Protein backbone atom coordinates (compact mmCIF):
# COMPACT_ATOMS: atom_id res chain seq x y z
CA UNK A 1 0.00 0.00 0.00
CA UNK A 2 1.51 3.33 -1.05
CA UNK A 3 1.50 6.43 1.11
CA UNK A 4 -1.05 8.02 -1.19
CA UNK A 5 -3.43 5.12 -0.73
CA UNK A 6 -3.04 5.15 3.03
CA UNK A 7 -3.82 8.86 3.09
CA UNK A 8 -6.83 8.45 0.85
CA UNK A 9 -8.21 5.65 2.91
CA UNK A 10 -7.61 7.18 6.30
CA UNK A 11 -8.17 10.84 5.49
CA UNK A 12 -10.75 11.10 8.26
CA UNK A 13 -8.43 9.91 10.99
CA UNK A 14 -5.77 12.32 9.74
CA UNK A 15 -8.19 15.25 9.79
CA UNK A 16 -9.31 14.30 13.29
CA UNK A 17 -5.74 14.21 14.57
CA UNK A 18 -4.95 17.57 12.94
CA UNK A 19 -8.04 19.14 14.50
CA UNK A 20 -6.97 17.89 17.93
CA UNK A 21 -3.55 19.45 17.39
CA UNK A 22 -4.93 22.73 16.04
CA UNK A 23 -7.04 23.15 19.16
CA UNK A 24 -4.62 21.74 21.74
CA UNK A 25 -1.48 23.65 20.73
CA UNK A 26 -2.91 27.20 21.11
CA UNK A 27 -4.55 26.09 24.37
CA UNK A 28 -1.13 25.20 25.75
CA UNK A 29 0.70 28.14 24.15
CA UNK A 30 -1.75 31.06 23.79
CA UNK A 31 -0.90 33.69 21.16
CA UNK A 32 -3.02 36.41 22.78
CA UNK A 33 -5.07 37.69 19.83
CA UNK A 34 -7.25 40.68 20.77
CA UNK A 35 -10.89 39.93 21.67
CA UNK A 36 -13.26 42.38 19.93
CA UNK A 37 -16.53 43.10 21.78
CA UNK A 38 -19.84 42.51 19.96
CA UNK A 39 -22.72 44.91 20.39
CA UNK A 40 -25.00 42.12 21.63
CA UNK A 41 -22.58 41.38 24.49
CA UNK A 42 -22.04 45.05 25.29
CA UNK A 43 -25.82 45.51 25.61
CA UNK A 44 -26.06 42.79 28.25
CA UNK A 45 -23.11 44.26 30.14
CA UNK A 46 -24.53 47.81 30.09
CA UNK A 47 -27.92 46.63 31.30
CA UNK A 48 -26.49 44.58 34.15
CA UNK A 49 -24.13 47.40 35.06
CA UNK A 50 -26.99 49.88 35.34
CA UNK A 51 -29.04 47.75 37.79
CA UNK A 52 -30.13 49.55 40.97
CA UNK A 53 -30.34 48.17 44.54
CA UNK A 54 -33.58 46.25 44.97
CA UNK A 55 -33.73 45.11 41.36
CA UNK A 56 -34.44 41.41 40.87
CA UNK A 57 -32.55 39.36 38.31
CA UNK A 58 -33.68 35.89 37.30
CA UNK A 59 -30.90 33.66 36.07
CA UNK A 60 -32.50 31.00 33.89
CA UNK A 61 -30.03 28.29 34.78
CA UNK A 62 -30.53 25.60 32.20
CA UNK A 63 -27.02 24.41 31.84
CA UNK A 64 -26.62 20.74 31.12
CA UNK A 65 -23.48 18.69 30.71
CA UNK A 66 -23.67 18.97 26.95
CA UNK A 67 -23.71 22.76 26.78
CA UNK A 68 -21.48 23.23 29.78
CA UNK A 69 -18.40 24.22 27.77
CA UNK A 70 -20.18 26.98 25.89
CA UNK A 71 -22.58 28.47 28.38
CA UNK A 72 -21.13 27.86 31.83
CA UNK A 73 -18.32 30.44 31.41
CA UNK A 74 -20.94 33.06 30.50
CA UNK A 75 -23.00 32.09 33.51
CA UNK A 76 -20.11 32.46 35.92
CA UNK A 77 -19.09 35.82 34.45
CA UNK A 78 -22.56 37.32 34.72
CA UNK A 79 -23.06 35.90 38.21
CA UNK A 80 -19.77 37.46 39.23
CA UNK A 81 -20.86 40.80 37.75
CA UNK A 82 -24.20 40.61 39.59
CA UNK A 83 -22.51 39.80 42.89
CA UNK A 84 -20.36 42.91 42.51
CA UNK A 85 -23.51 45.04 42.34
CA UNK A 86 -24.70 46.12 45.78
CA UNK A 87 -28.31 45.21 46.69
CA UNK A 88 -29.22 43.43 43.47
CA UNK A 89 -31.25 40.31 44.20
CA UNK A 90 -30.63 37.15 42.22
CA UNK A 91 -32.94 34.17 41.67
CA UNK A 92 -31.45 31.05 40.15
CA UNK A 93 -33.94 28.70 38.59
CA UNK A 94 -33.93 26.20 35.77
CA UNK A 95 -36.11 23.87 33.78
CA UNK A 96 -33.24 21.77 32.51
CA UNK A 97 -32.81 18.57 34.50
CA UNK A 98 -29.15 18.97 35.32
CA UNK A 99 -29.41 22.69 36.01
CA UNK A 100 -29.10 22.71 39.84
CA UNK A 101 -25.75 20.92 39.79
CA UNK A 102 -24.18 23.59 37.63
CA UNK A 103 -25.89 26.47 39.40
CA UNK A 104 -24.42 25.25 42.71
CA UNK A 105 -21.05 24.79 41.07
CA UNK A 106 -21.09 28.39 39.80
CA UNK A 107 -22.18 29.74 43.19
CA UNK A 108 -19.28 27.92 44.82
CA UNK A 109 -16.86 29.07 42.15
CA UNK A 110 -17.52 32.75 42.87
CA UNK A 111 -17.75 32.03 46.63
CA UNK A 112 -21.31 33.34 46.69
CA UNK A 113 -22.16 32.01 50.13
CA UNK A 114 -19.29 33.95 51.69
CA UNK A 115 -19.95 37.18 49.82
CA UNK A 116 -23.69 37.58 50.26
CA UNK A 117 -26.42 36.18 52.44
CA UNK A 118 -28.53 33.32 51.14
CA UNK A 119 -32.22 34.08 51.22
CA UNK A 120 -31.63 37.83 51.42
CA UNK A 121 -29.55 38.53 48.33
CA UNK A 122 -29.93 35.36 46.34
CA UNK A 123 -32.09 32.25 46.18
CA UNK A 124 -31.59 28.99 44.36
CA UNK A 125 -34.93 27.46 43.36
CA UNK A 126 -33.42 24.43 41.61
CA UNK A 127 -35.09 22.70 38.75
CA UNK A 128 -38.77 22.60 37.85
CA UNK A 129 -40.02 19.99 35.39
CA UNK A 130 -42.65 20.68 32.80
CA UNK A 131 -40.78 22.95 30.43
CA UNK A 132 -42.81 25.87 29.20
CA UNK A 133 -45.67 25.11 31.57
CA UNK A 134 -43.28 25.43 34.51
CA UNK A 135 -41.94 28.79 33.34
CA UNK A 136 -45.45 29.98 32.72
CA UNK A 137 -46.44 28.90 36.23
CA UNK A 138 -43.53 30.81 37.75
CA UNK A 139 -44.34 34.00 35.86
CA UNK A 140 -47.96 33.74 36.82
CA UNK A 141 -47.77 32.90 40.50
CA UNK A 142 -44.46 31.68 41.80
CA UNK A 143 -45.65 30.74 45.26
CA UNK A 144 -48.50 28.56 44.07
CA UNK A 145 -46.18 26.50 41.87
CA UNK A 146 -43.39 26.19 44.36
CA UNK A 147 -43.33 26.08 48.18
CA UNK A 148 -39.70 25.30 48.82
CA UNK A 149 -36.32 26.28 47.46
CA UNK A 150 -33.78 23.86 46.17
CA UNK A 151 -32.57 22.68 49.57
CA UNK A 152 -36.13 22.30 50.80
CA UNK A 153 -36.35 25.50 52.86
CA UNK A 154 -39.88 26.91 52.75
CA UNK A 155 -40.01 30.02 50.55
CA UNK A 156 -41.82 31.84 53.38
CA UNK A 157 -38.59 31.65 55.42
CA UNK A 158 -36.59 33.47 52.76
CA UNK A 159 -36.97 37.24 53.27
CA UNK A 160 -36.30 38.29 49.67
CA UNK A 161 -39.05 36.05 48.29
CA UNK A 162 -41.72 37.96 50.24
CA UNK A 163 -42.12 40.69 47.63
CA UNK A 164 -41.56 38.49 44.62
CA UNK A 165 -44.73 36.91 43.33
CA UNK A 166 -44.82 36.96 39.55
CA UNK A 167 -43.05 38.14 36.42
CA UNK A 168 -43.96 41.76 37.14
CA UNK A 169 -41.50 41.63 40.04
CA UNK A 170 -38.58 40.50 37.90
CA UNK A 171 -36.47 43.39 36.60
CA UNK A 172 -34.59 41.39 34.02
CA UNK A 173 -34.31 37.75 33.07
CA UNK A 174 -31.15 36.30 31.62
CA UNK A 175 -31.69 32.81 30.33
CA UNK A 176 -28.82 30.43 29.76
CA UNK A 177 -29.82 27.59 27.56
CA UNK A 178 -29.17 25.49 24.51
CA UNK A 179 -32.28 24.51 22.76
CA UNK A 180 -35.80 25.50 21.95
CA UNK A 181 -36.28 26.38 25.61
CA UNK A 182 -34.79 29.82 25.14
CA UNK A 183 -38.19 30.66 23.75
CA UNK A 184 -39.92 29.82 27.01
CA UNK A 185 -39.05 32.97 28.92
CA UNK A 186 -39.72 35.09 25.86
CA UNK A 187 -43.13 33.49 25.44
CA UNK A 188 -44.12 33.42 29.08
CA UNK A 189 -42.47 36.48 30.63
CA UNK A 190 -41.82 38.96 27.82
CA UNK A 191 -45.03 38.32 25.88
CA UNK A 192 -47.57 38.48 28.71
CA UNK A 193 -45.76 40.76 31.20
CA UNK A 194 -43.25 42.72 29.14
CA UNK A 195 -40.32 41.70 31.35
CA UNK A 196 -36.95 42.32 29.67
CA UNK A 197 -35.15 39.19 28.60
CA UNK A 198 -31.59 38.51 27.45
CA UNK A 199 -30.02 35.24 26.39
CA UNK A 200 -26.80 33.42 27.04
CA UNK A 201 -26.79 30.88 24.26
CA UNK A 202 -24.89 28.16 22.53
CA UNK A 203 -23.70 29.26 19.12
CA UNK A 204 -26.22 27.13 17.29
CA UNK A 205 -29.13 28.97 18.86
CA UNK A 206 -27.85 32.46 18.13
CA UNK A 207 -29.13 33.03 14.56
CA UNK A 208 -32.81 33.14 15.39
CA UNK A 209 -32.23 34.87 18.69
CA UNK A 210 -30.65 37.55 16.53
CA UNK A 211 -33.96 38.05 14.75
CA UNK A 212 -35.56 38.63 18.17
CA UNK A 213 -32.75 41.03 18.99
CA UNK A 214 -33.18 43.15 15.85
CA UNK A 215 -36.94 43.19 16.38
CA UNK A 216 -36.30 44.63 19.85
CA UNK A 217 -37.76 41.66 21.73
CA UNK A 218 -34.63 40.85 23.70
CA UNK A 219 -32.03 43.31 24.92
CA UNK A 220 -28.86 41.32 24.42
CA UNK A 221 -27.22 38.00 23.60
CA UNK A 222 -24.08 36.27 24.80
CA UNK A 223 -22.84 34.05 22.01
CA UNK A 224 -21.19 30.82 23.06
CA UNK A 225 -17.61 30.83 24.34
CA UNK A 226 -16.98 33.99 22.30
CA UNK A 227 -19.59 35.93 24.28
CA UNK A 228 -18.18 34.57 27.53
CA UNK A 229 -14.69 35.70 26.54
CA UNK A 230 -16.00 39.18 25.71
CA UNK A 231 -17.80 39.38 29.04
CA UNK A 232 -14.70 38.24 30.87
CA UNK A 233 -12.82 41.09 29.19
CA UNK A 234 -15.56 43.58 30.08
CA UNK A 235 -15.63 42.70 33.78
CA UNK A 236 -11.86 42.36 33.75
CA UNK A 237 -11.78 38.78 34.99
CA UNK A 238 -10.08 36.84 32.19
CA UNK A 239 -10.67 33.14 32.61
CA UNK A 240 -11.18 29.95 30.71
CA UNK A 241 -13.08 31.57 27.82
CA UNK A 242 -10.45 34.19 26.93
CA UNK A 243 -7.88 31.44 27.06
CA UNK A 244 -9.82 29.43 24.49
CA UNK A 245 -10.18 32.20 21.92
CA UNK A 246 -6.88 31.54 20.15
CA UNK A 247 -7.75 27.88 19.76
CA UNK A 248 -11.12 29.03 18.42
CA UNK A 249 -9.42 31.18 15.76
CA UNK A 250 -7.03 28.45 14.68
CA UNK A 251 -9.79 25.86 14.46
CA UNK A 252 -11.87 28.18 12.29
CA UNK A 253 -8.96 28.68 9.91
CA UNK A 254 -8.56 24.90 9.79
CA UNK A 255 -12.19 24.41 8.78
CA UNK A 256 -11.99 27.12 6.11
CA UNK A 257 -8.85 25.44 4.80
CA UNK A 258 -10.60 22.07 4.60
CA UNK A 259 -13.54 23.55 2.72
CA UNK A 260 -11.23 25.30 0.27
CA UNK A 261 -9.18 22.14 -0.34
CA UNK A 262 -12.38 20.22 -0.90
CA UNK A 263 -13.50 22.67 -3.55
CA UNK A 264 -10.13 22.98 -5.25
CA UNK A 265 -10.07 19.18 -5.52
CA UNK A 266 -13.63 19.18 -6.82
CA UNK A 267 -13.03 21.76 -9.56
CA UNK A 268 -9.68 20.27 -10.58
CA UNK A 269 -11.27 16.86 -10.85
CA UNK A 270 -14.06 18.26 -12.95
CA UNK A 271 -11.66 19.91 -15.40
CA UNK A 272 -9.98 16.59 -16.05
Amino acid at each position, binding site marked *: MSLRETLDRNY*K*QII*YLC*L*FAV*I*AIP*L*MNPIGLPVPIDKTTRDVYDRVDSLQPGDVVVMGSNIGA*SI*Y*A*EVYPQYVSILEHLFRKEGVKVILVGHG*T*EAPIFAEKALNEIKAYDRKEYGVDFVHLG*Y*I*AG*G*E*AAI*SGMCRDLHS*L*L*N*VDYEGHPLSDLPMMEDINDANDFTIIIDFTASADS*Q*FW*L*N*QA*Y*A*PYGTDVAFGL*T*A*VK*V*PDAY*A*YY*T*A*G*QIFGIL*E*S*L*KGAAQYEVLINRPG*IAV*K*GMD*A*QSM*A*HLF*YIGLILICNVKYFMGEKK
Partner: protein
Amino acid sequence: MTGVETLSILIATTLTLMMYTILYRENPAFRFGEHIMVGSTVGHAIVLAVFQIRDLAWIKFYQGITTGDIRGLAYIIPMVLGILLYFQFSSKYRFISRLSIAMMLGVGIALSIRGLLFVNVVGQIKGAMMPLTSIKNIAYLIGIICVLLYFVYEERASRVAGPLPKVGRYILMLTMGAYFANAIMGRVSIVIGTLNTLLVAPAWYLIPIALLIVIADAFTRRKKSAEQ
Protein backbone atom coordinates in the same frame (compact mmCIF):
# COMPACT_ATOMS: atom_id res chain seq x y z
CA MET B 1 -5.87 16.84 45.16
CA THR B 2 -7.58 14.11 47.17
CA GLY B 3 -7.66 10.49 46.10
CA VAL B 4 -11.38 10.68 45.34
CA GLU B 5 -10.86 13.63 43.01
CA THR B 6 -8.01 11.92 41.21
CA LEU B 7 -10.12 8.81 40.78
CA SER B 8 -12.96 10.92 39.36
CA ILE B 9 -10.65 12.58 36.85
CA LEU B 10 -9.16 9.26 35.79
CA ILE B 11 -12.54 7.63 35.25
CA ALA B 12 -13.89 10.68 33.41
CA THR B 13 -10.84 10.80 31.16
CA THR B 14 -11.03 7.09 30.43
CA LEU B 15 -14.67 7.42 29.44
CA THR B 16 -13.92 10.48 27.29
CA LEU B 17 -11.15 8.67 25.46
CA MET B 18 -13.34 5.59 25.03
CA MET B 19 -15.96 7.73 23.32
CA TYR B 20 -13.34 9.35 21.11
CA THR B 21 -12.27 5.94 19.80
CA ILE B 22 -15.33 6.02 17.51
CA LEU B 23 -13.30 8.50 15.47
CA TYR B 24 -10.96 5.61 14.76
CA ARG B 25 -13.58 2.90 14.26
CA GLU B 26 -16.60 1.25 15.87
CA ASN B 27 -15.28 -0.90 18.72
CA PRO B 28 -16.14 -2.48 22.09
CA ALA B 29 -14.71 0.43 24.09
CA PHE B 30 -17.08 2.85 22.38
CA ARG B 31 -19.99 0.45 22.80
CA PHE B 32 -19.21 0.16 26.50
CA GLY B 33 -19.19 3.95 26.85
CA GLU B 34 -22.38 4.22 24.83
CA HIS B 35 -24.26 1.86 27.14
CA ILE B 36 -22.98 3.58 30.25
CA MET B 37 -24.15 6.86 28.77
CA VAL B 38 -27.68 5.62 28.15
CA GLY B 39 -27.92 3.90 31.53
CA SER B 40 -26.70 6.90 33.46
CA THR B 41 -28.92 9.46 31.74
CA VAL B 42 -31.98 7.31 32.29
CA GLY B 43 -31.01 6.69 35.91
CA HIS B 44 -30.67 10.43 36.29
CA ALA B 45 -34.14 10.94 34.82
CA ILE B 46 -35.63 8.50 37.34
CA VAL B 47 -34.09 10.38 40.24
CA LEU B 48 -35.36 13.72 38.94
CA ALA B 49 -38.85 12.40 38.30
CA VAL B 50 -39.14 11.09 41.86
CA PHE B 51 -37.96 14.35 43.42
CA GLN B 52 -40.24 16.41 41.19
CA ILE B 53 -43.30 14.43 42.09
CA ARG B 54 -42.38 14.66 45.77
CA ASP B 55 -41.82 18.44 45.70
CA LEU B 56 -44.55 19.60 43.36
CA ALA B 57 -47.39 17.22 44.02
CA TRP B 58 -46.97 15.00 47.08
CA ILE B 59 -46.08 17.83 49.49
CA LYS B 60 -49.09 19.88 48.39
CA PHE B 61 -51.41 16.89 48.52
CA TYR B 62 -50.13 16.03 51.99
CA GLN B 63 -50.75 19.59 53.16
CA GLY B 64 -54.20 19.31 51.64
CA ILE B 65 -54.92 16.23 53.79
CA THR B 66 -53.75 17.89 56.99
CA THR B 67 -55.51 21.22 56.39
CA GLY B 68 -58.46 20.01 54.33
CA ASP B 69 -57.67 22.57 51.61
CA ILE B 70 -59.51 21.51 48.47
CA ARG B 71 -56.96 22.99 46.08
CA GLY B 72 -54.25 20.92 47.76
CA LEU B 73 -56.34 17.74 47.76
CA ALA B 74 -56.92 18.18 44.03
CA TYR B 75 -53.24 17.43 43.47
CA ILE B 76 -54.17 13.76 43.66
CA ILE B 77 -55.64 14.19 40.16
CA PRO B 78 -52.39 14.88 38.29
CA MET B 79 -50.70 12.07 40.25
CA VAL B 80 -53.35 9.59 39.18
CA LEU B 81 -53.19 10.90 35.63
CA GLY B 82 -49.43 10.50 35.73
CA ILE B 83 -49.76 6.84 36.69
CA LEU B 84 -52.37 6.29 33.98
CA LEU B 85 -49.70 7.32 31.44
CA TYR B 86 -48.13 3.91 31.93
CA PHE B 87 -51.06 2.21 30.23
CA GLN B 88 -49.30 3.23 27.03
CA PHE B 89 -47.36 0.01 27.23
CA SER B 90 -50.45 -2.17 27.10
CA SER B 91 -51.79 -2.55 23.60
CA LYS B 92 -55.22 -3.41 24.96
CA TYR B 93 -55.59 -0.57 27.45
CA ARG B 94 -53.49 2.05 25.72
CA PHE B 95 -56.51 4.31 25.36
CA ILE B 96 -56.55 4.89 29.14
CA SER B 97 -53.38 6.95 28.90
CA ARG B 98 -55.13 9.29 26.50
CA LEU B 99 -56.62 11.42 29.22
CA SER B 100 -53.20 12.14 30.75
CA ILE B 101 -51.72 12.91 27.36
CA ALA B 102 -54.68 15.15 26.55
CA MET B 103 -53.98 17.12 29.71
CA MET B 104 -50.28 17.62 28.92
CA LEU B 105 -50.88 18.19 25.25
CA GLY B 106 -53.62 20.75 25.85
CA VAL B 107 -51.46 22.83 28.17
CA GLY B 108 -48.44 22.49 25.91
CA ILE B 109 -50.24 23.43 22.73
CA ALA B 110 -51.99 26.39 24.29
CA LEU B 111 -48.77 27.71 25.78
CA SER B 112 -46.87 27.43 22.54
CA ILE B 113 -49.63 29.02 20.45
CA ARG B 114 -49.75 31.90 22.92
CA GLY B 115 -46.06 32.50 22.86
CA LEU B 116 -45.15 31.65 19.30
CA LEU B 117 -47.91 33.64 17.65
CA PHE B 118 -47.13 36.61 19.83
CA VAL B 119 -43.36 36.54 19.63
CA ASN B 120 -42.72 34.86 16.28
CA VAL B 121 -45.60 36.05 14.16
CA VAL B 122 -46.89 39.38 15.51
CA GLY B 123 -43.45 40.44 16.77
CA GLN B 124 -41.56 39.49 13.64
CA ILE B 125 -44.11 41.04 11.28
CA LYS B 126 -43.72 44.25 13.24
CA GLY B 127 -39.96 43.89 13.05
CA ALA B 128 -40.09 43.33 9.29
CA MET B 129 -41.94 46.56 8.52
CA MET B 130 -39.41 49.23 7.70
CA PRO B 131 -39.67 52.48 5.72
CA LEU B 132 -38.43 51.81 2.18
CA THR B 133 -36.02 54.70 2.25
CA SER B 134 -32.75 52.86 1.84
CA ILE B 135 -31.52 50.13 -0.49
CA LYS B 136 -30.85 48.01 2.58
CA ASN B 137 -34.46 48.16 3.77
CA ILE B 138 -35.81 47.45 0.28
CA ALA B 139 -33.51 44.41 0.03
CA TYR B 140 -34.70 43.18 3.44
CA LEU B 141 -38.33 43.54 2.41
CA ILE B 142 -37.92 41.72 -0.90
CA GLY B 143 -35.86 39.08 0.86
CA ILE B 144 -38.38 38.19 3.54
CA ILE B 145 -41.25 38.10 1.03
CA CYS B 146 -39.33 35.73 -1.23
CA VAL B 147 -38.56 33.36 1.65
CA LEU B 148 -42.14 33.37 2.88
CA LEU B 149 -43.33 32.60 -0.64
CA TYR B 150 -40.91 29.67 -0.84
CA PHE B 151 -42.89 28.07 1.97
CA VAL B 152 -46.12 28.22 -0.05
CA TYR B 153 -46.84 24.75 -1.39
CA GLU B 154 -50.10 24.95 -3.28
CA GLU B 155 -49.36 24.33 -6.95
CA ARG B 156 -51.19 27.27 -8.48
CA ALA B 157 -50.09 29.79 -5.88
CA SER B 158 -46.46 28.83 -6.26
CA ARG B 159 -46.74 29.16 -10.04
CA VAL B 160 -48.20 32.68 -9.68
CA ALA B 161 -45.29 33.70 -7.46
CA GLY B 162 -42.95 33.09 -10.40
CA PRO B 163 -39.23 33.23 -9.67
CA LEU B 164 -39.66 34.68 -6.14
CA PRO B 165 -39.70 31.31 -4.29
CA LYS B 166 -36.50 30.36 -6.11
CA VAL B 167 -34.83 33.54 -4.83
CA GLY B 168 -36.28 32.69 -1.43
CA ARG B 169 -34.53 29.32 -1.54
CA TYR B 170 -31.23 31.06 -2.33
CA ILE B 171 -31.68 33.34 0.66
CA LEU B 172 -32.47 30.29 2.78
CA MET B 173 -29.12 28.85 1.66
CA LEU B 174 -27.34 31.99 2.90
CA THR B 175 -29.24 31.58 6.16
CA MET B 176 -28.15 27.96 6.38
CA GLY B 177 -24.57 29.19 5.89
CA ALA B 178 -25.05 31.33 8.99
CA TYR B 179 -26.37 28.38 10.98
CA PHE B 180 -23.49 26.27 9.73
CA ALA B 181 -20.84 28.82 10.75
CA ASN B 182 -22.36 29.19 14.17
CA ALA B 183 -22.60 25.47 14.67
CA ILE B 184 -18.89 25.17 13.99
CA MET B 185 -18.18 27.88 16.54
CA GLY B 186 -20.28 26.04 19.09
CA ARG B 187 -18.80 22.60 18.53
CA VAL B 188 -15.25 23.90 18.61
CA SER B 189 -16.03 25.61 21.92
CA ILE B 190 -17.12 22.27 23.34
CA VAL B 191 -13.95 20.54 22.20
CA ILE B 192 -11.97 23.38 23.77
CA GLY B 193 -13.85 22.70 26.99
CA THR B 194 -13.08 18.97 26.84
CA LEU B 195 -9.41 19.55 26.01
CA ASN B 196 -9.15 22.04 28.85
CA THR B 197 -9.87 19.17 31.22
CA LEU B 198 -7.87 16.58 29.28
CA LEU B 199 -4.67 18.59 29.03
CA VAL B 200 -3.91 18.73 32.76
CA ALA B 201 -2.33 16.08 34.96
CA PRO B 202 -3.29 13.38 35.83
CA ALA B 203 -5.75 13.14 32.90
CA TRP B 204 -2.94 13.98 30.49
CA TYR B 205 -1.11 10.70 31.18
CA LEU B 206 -3.92 8.61 29.80
CA ILE B 207 -3.76 10.11 26.31
CA PRO B 208 -0.51 8.42 25.16
CA ILE B 209 -1.79 5.11 26.55
CA ALA B 210 -4.97 5.41 24.49
CA LEU B 211 -2.97 6.37 21.40
CA LEU B 212 -0.72 3.35 21.84
CA ILE B 213 -3.70 1.01 22.08
CA VAL B 214 -5.21 2.46 18.91
CA ILE B 215 -1.91 2.24 17.00
CA ALA B 216 -1.40 -1.35 18.15
CA ASP B 217 -4.88 -2.23 16.97
CA ALA B 218 -4.30 -0.55 13.61
CA PHE B 219 -1.12 -2.58 13.09
CA THR B 220 -2.63 -5.94 13.99
CA ARG B 221 -5.56 -5.27 11.70
CA ARG B 222 -3.24 -4.33 8.87
CA LYS B 223 -1.19 -7.46 9.39
CA LYS B 224 -4.30 -9.61 9.37
CA SER B 225 -5.60 -8.10 6.14
CA ALA B 226 -2.14 -8.53 4.57
CA GLU B 227 -2.13 -12.23 5.51
CA GLN B 228 -5.47 -12.87 3.92
